């Protein structure tokens, strides 16, 4: 589903990713772990198509298509979703309005008819319940005055509403206490699906206790330096990144 080959990315002239190669199949959950500054967030932004991230070499293929040729909103319509580390506030725009606008934009881009307000509301309400997102949150302006936990829950709610094919979760665990983490992780697990691939980016092993990945990649210095099964996370937890980085990749 997703094939990244020898990806080099520069931001403001500085090379951040230096030859990253990664491949994910539908139904799989992969984790990317790595120390601060290793290029984790850069990878997530490049996949989403954020401006200012220049690909200097390599390729990203998504369902057989050159992902880099698509605009961010086209990627979204084709099923690429990024749960952001720092969800953005949009004053005056209610969460519900935002969800409806986004959902219908994606549908339109796919040539599907718009959903009316009532059916969107029904759909969102049902899914919000599972994630402990209150009715009141849906009426408030998007992310304005939301706690860290609320913001992250809302990201996962969006993911469940948009039903993406490829979901990238960028440090979804950051700033969450253990209860919030559990709710978010349960939400993510509920979305595991044979047709869906997920890329979970995290600094800590903790999240992977709840979202158990099929494969773990360790990112350091802009490259994948180690790969393995879920046990790799435990090894990292026990020995730290330093240990892995010292070993020849």
């Amino acid at each position, binding site marked *: 589903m997703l094939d990244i080959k020898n990806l080099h990315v520069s931001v403001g002239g500085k090379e951040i990713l230096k030859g990253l190669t990664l491949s994910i199949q539908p139904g799989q959950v992969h984790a990317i772990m790595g120390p601060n500054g290793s290029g984790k967030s850069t990878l997530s932004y490049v996949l989403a198509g954020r401006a200012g991230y220049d690909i200097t070499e390599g390729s990203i293929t998504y369902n057989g298509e050159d992902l880099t040729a698509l605009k961010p*909103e086209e990627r979204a319509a084709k099923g690429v979703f990024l749960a952001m580390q720092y969800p953005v506030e949009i004053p*005056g725009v209610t969460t519900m309005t935002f969800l409806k606008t986004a959902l219908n*934009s994606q549908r339109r881009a796919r040539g599907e008819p718009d959903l009316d307000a009532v059916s969107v509301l029904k759909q969102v309400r049902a899914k919000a319940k599972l994630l402990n997102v209150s009715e009141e949150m849906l009426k408030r302006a998007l992310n304005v005055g939301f706690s860290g936990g609320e913001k992250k829950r809302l990201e996962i709610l969006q993911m469940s509403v948009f039903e993406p094919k490829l979901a990238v979760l960028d440090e979804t665990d950051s700033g969450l206490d253990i209860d919030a983490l559990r709710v978010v992780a349960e939400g993510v697990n509920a979305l595991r699906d044979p047709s869906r691939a997920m890329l979970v980016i995290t600094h800590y092993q903790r999240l992977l206790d709840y979202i158990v990945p099929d494969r773990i990649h360790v990112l350091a210095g802009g490259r994948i330096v180690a790969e393995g099964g879920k046990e790799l996370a435990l090894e990292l937890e026990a020995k730290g990144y330093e240990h892995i980085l010292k070993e020849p990749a």
Partner: protein
Amino acid sequence: MSIAAETKQQVAEIGEKYKYGFVTDIEMDMAPRGLSEDTVRFISAKKGEPEWMLEWRLGAFRRWLTMKEPNWARVHYPKIDYQNAFYYAAPKNTPLKQSLDEVDPKLLETYKKLGIPLHEQMALAGVAVDAVFDSVSVATTFKEKLNEAGVIFCPISEAIRDYPDLVKQYLGSVVPVTDNFFATLNAAVFSDGTFVYVPKGVRCPMELSTYFRINASETGQFERTIIIADEGSYVSYLEGCTAPKRDENQLHAAVVELVALDNAEIKYSTVQNWYPGDENGLGGIFNFVTKRGDCRGKKSKISWTQVETGSAITWKYPSCILRGDESVGEFYSIAIANNYQQADTGTKMIHLGANTRSRIISKGISAGKAQNTYRGLVSVYGKAKNARNYTQCDSLLIGGDCGAHTVPYIESRNPTARIEHEATTSKIAEDQLFYCLQRGIPQDEAVSLIVNGFCREVLQQLPMEFAVEAQKLVGISLEGSVG
């Protein structure tokens, strides 16, 4: 003549003219170029006005000759040659088009985006079709309901003829003939406008809007509007149109006077979307408007809501004179300036009575190379015990070449006054845009969504039927503003 009858007649006339290929001598229906006492007499005669009205106009004209064009606003435009303009042209001579195929496709595109019903599109674009007759039936039902309630709602020229005492009593009582250069010019040459009188204790049974909207294509260059809400009455008036309209008259100088007596309330909403000029700043309407409301009675209330997206230059300060004790004035404004547009707009809240309250919410959006100024005055006079004002001015910038300016004047001559002023300036952040894009919302829609969020407090003040169109208009005005 009733509104319905007049509308019918107008429609009939239009049809006839079209059929016979405009044989009417157009010159006959136009005042000669330039401005003189003769022009004023010509207009007054065309309107069949009584002597007192002509005298009033001539007085204004003589005064105007001694006045200077104001230059304190933060707007720049080439000098206007007042002698090289036409001051009266019968609007019905606009050649009608046979079908929508003859209308500028760009205009139709915008109508479509705004979701304007087809027959209204035709009326707006000046297409001669049977559909226009729909408006006659609408106007008829409308008129009946208003008649039952005793509400007078008619063209000002009709009011001058049929209700001279009311007109004499209120004309120029809020905006005096001598008020300012443009208002005085309007007093001399106004050609049309609306007159509304809501009797004591009557709640006007409907928003005074549909009629006006259908007839928007008839509005003149110098409009004069008077709305009087007698004791304990309520009226909501909608002016303008979300649909863009081409107009050959570059200079517009309207005057609006509102009077609210004891316990009366007037809600006045405007959506102004006149031709703003092209991307290079060529052409476009100069809109120099004087709008003022007088809260003459105790516990009266006047509320202005405006969405200003059009015109090359906007010079406009809808104001409230809070004369009655415990009266309330409100001003809610969205001003959008894109490309080379210049907007200098705001309000004046003049607190004269005790326990008067005012509230100002202004949202200015600048894009392209536009300059957007909020200019406001809050003045508390000596007798205005416990006067209160709250002002909030928010500016939003899109791109790096535009400007936002806030010029608040605050004067207080009473120590018990409480005046609050808050102002913010922000930019649409790149991360907000990216967030929207990532969720599948294309750029122009994302800008529209974010700006509508920014304007929400004001949009909520608009009557429902207008609010939806106004939201779309906000988006359309800013299309392509983020590169």
